[in-house]
């Protein structure tokens, strides 16, 4: 299993029947592929609907139906459309149970930096600030280190923040970490990965309890 599939599979297990979920662009979108058949999730798309369905067969797209990542999608039975103010009323008002978001950096306080590298990458925050601030639970989906092998789970984010103290769970290809009142707690290690390896590749101060589990996917 590659790193991205591992992360997506693990996050899928966090989603409960009946929840309203927003999956961010990229890796988070893949989470939808691993939701068990007996779990019904309502996927919200911040550009204005609830009920994202699968990607349509090649050439059968509807010009008026994309997700927030600019991909043509379909909708499931029971879907509904609305305008952008209603969409973010749903998000800001706490009616999204879980948001899954990729990031550039995340830190032990739950700060998230995902939208800009000044002078280099200028994407814009899109709906990510509202999603992090408004959702009941924020799950960060990220590789544990960047392409240069540098830690992405930091003591303190260095890039401009998307949201302050909003990340609840961090799922990487190496570990599952939970933000608590006491600090960032290591909950699970990926199969074949040692606690020592995780600590070596993590800048954040990790609390390591006695009962760290092996990640199930």
């Amino acid at each position, binding site marked *: 299993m590659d790193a991205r599939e591992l992360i997506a599979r693990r996050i899928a297990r966090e989603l409960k029947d009946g929840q309203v979920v927003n999956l961010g662009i990229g890796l988070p979108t893949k989470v939808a592929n691993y939701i068990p058949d007996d779990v019904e999730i309502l996927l919200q798309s911040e550009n204005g609907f609830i009920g994202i369905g699968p990607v349509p067969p090649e050439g059968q797209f509807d010009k008026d*139906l994309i997700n927030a990542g600019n991909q043509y999608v379909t909708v499931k039975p029971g879907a509904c459309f609305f305008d952008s103010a209603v969409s*973010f009323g749903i998000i800001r008002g706490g009616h999204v149970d879980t948001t899954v978001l990729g990031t550039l950096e995340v830190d032990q306080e739950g700060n998230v930096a995902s939208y800009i590298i000044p002078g280099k990458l200028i994407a814009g925050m899109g709906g990510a600030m509202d999603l992090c601030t408004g959702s009941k639970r924020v799950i960060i989906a990220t590789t544990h280190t960047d392409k240069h092998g540098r830690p992405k789970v930091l003591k303190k984010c260095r890039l401009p*923040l998307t949201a302050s103290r909003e990340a609840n769970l961090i799922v990487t290809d190496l570990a599952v970490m939970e933000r608590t009142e006491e600090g960032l707690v290591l909950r699970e290690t990926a199969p074949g990965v040692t606690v020592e390896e995780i600590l070596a590749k993590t800048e954040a101060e990790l609390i390591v309890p006695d009962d760290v589990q092996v990640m199930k996917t």
Partner: protein
Amino acid sequence: MDKVTTIDAAVSRITDGDSIMIAGFMSVGTPELLVDALIASGVKDLTIICNDAGTPGTGAGKIVDARIIRKYITNHIGLNPVCGKQMSDGELDVTLIPQGTMAERIRAGGAGIGGFLTPTGVGTVVQQGKQVMNIEGRDYLLELPLKADVALIKAHRADRSGNLIFRKSAQNFNPLMATACEYVIVEAEHIEDVGCLDPDAIMLPGIFVDAIIQG
């Protein structure tokens, strides 16, 4: 009150320096014919308010390509490298605001709300220069309404008085922007007689619309 007109007549009221809201999300729900006519009209020094910058050659991206923008207010330009480069090179003044705040500011502009408190952006650069208010233990930013001179709107169905119905995810910013601008032009895929639309299905009252062109 028949508001159907020609595209040339509709865009002729737009002048240099105008602020223009362009509806759509990654060009879905963007009135492409109106964008083309805006560029062809030769106006410049525009303030553009749009969810994103489209891509080079589509939607608002075409206006970026035309270099007739003085100021761009948006929330995401990640799929338009031309826009990113113009911004990095200091050629284009881009203001990034959160998408939900953008939608709510436009709604406030249309609905006579003088400002509103949102938790979005607290503790980020979005907070800079804004009043922070604590309500029942939580910090909020005071955000102000956003209005503009012109709105370019895309509808699925319009009646000749301007009542509009949008389709699927092409709704997005369309009904909001139409409420917040002085002069509202609609590019409609289907134009029908007054009375043909179900009054319960209409998503934007015709009173907000000034001109309709065939899309």
